[in-house]
């Protein structure tokens, strides 16, 4: 994995080329990585505090009845 710290990427508008439309390959690459990253988060365990919060729905419903 290569990263460059403190310098501009090699293709950030400074190469004389107009900012062309993303190619289908780039679109596919971006979509795939987006889904991978999204999937990582969605696979994390949901905090109990959120579920406890949602239990309030049941309590509110009980109060109404």
């Amino acid at each position: 994995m290569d990263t460059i710290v403190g310098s501009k990427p090699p293709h950030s508008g400074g190469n004389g080329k107009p900012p062309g439309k993303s190619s289908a390959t780039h679109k596919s690459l971006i979509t795939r990585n987006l889904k991978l990253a999204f999937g990582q988060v969605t696979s994390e365990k949901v905090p109990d505090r959120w579920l406890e919060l949602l239990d309030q729905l049941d309590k509110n419903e009980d109060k109404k009845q």
Partner: protein
Amino acid sequence: MSAPQAFKTELIELLPSLRAFARSLAHNAAQADDLVQDTLVKALANVDRFEPGTNLRAWLFTILRNHYYSQLRKSKREVEDAEGRHAARIAVRPEQDGSVDLEDFKVAFAQLAPDHREVLTLVGASGCSYEEAAAICGCAVGTIKSRVNRARRKLSDILGLDDEESGGVVPEANLLQENASV
């Protein structure tokens, strides 16, 4: 199943994607989780306003988005957490074969403006239609489409992807990486 029970069941199913959407906006995992927590509190306080049978995902995403931008306006700064500043200093470039390491991708993604991050997450990752994304973001479908295109171009630019490059294969090992921040 009663209406409140069905609402709760669907809401629980949506929590992971709500969290991922929050993570794409907030960068920081703790801040994103707080954002989800606040969204749940608001949703529960306004549950009577939700019409059963309508799009709960869009409703929740809209609440979260509005809350995020409201907080952003109050703080008058764009994500000044340590991760964000660190990300802004790092430029990435693709591997020789045109593939992109997932962690590099996340660093590049974090450098996008919030409105670009949100449309890419909504349309590119969470499976929202352009129409649904437009409803969530409160703008026209055409605006979403052009914003997605601009966001992809910007991301390609940050990643240093050349037009001639091919590939896009993410190494299988990346699938096992953890602590994602979309």
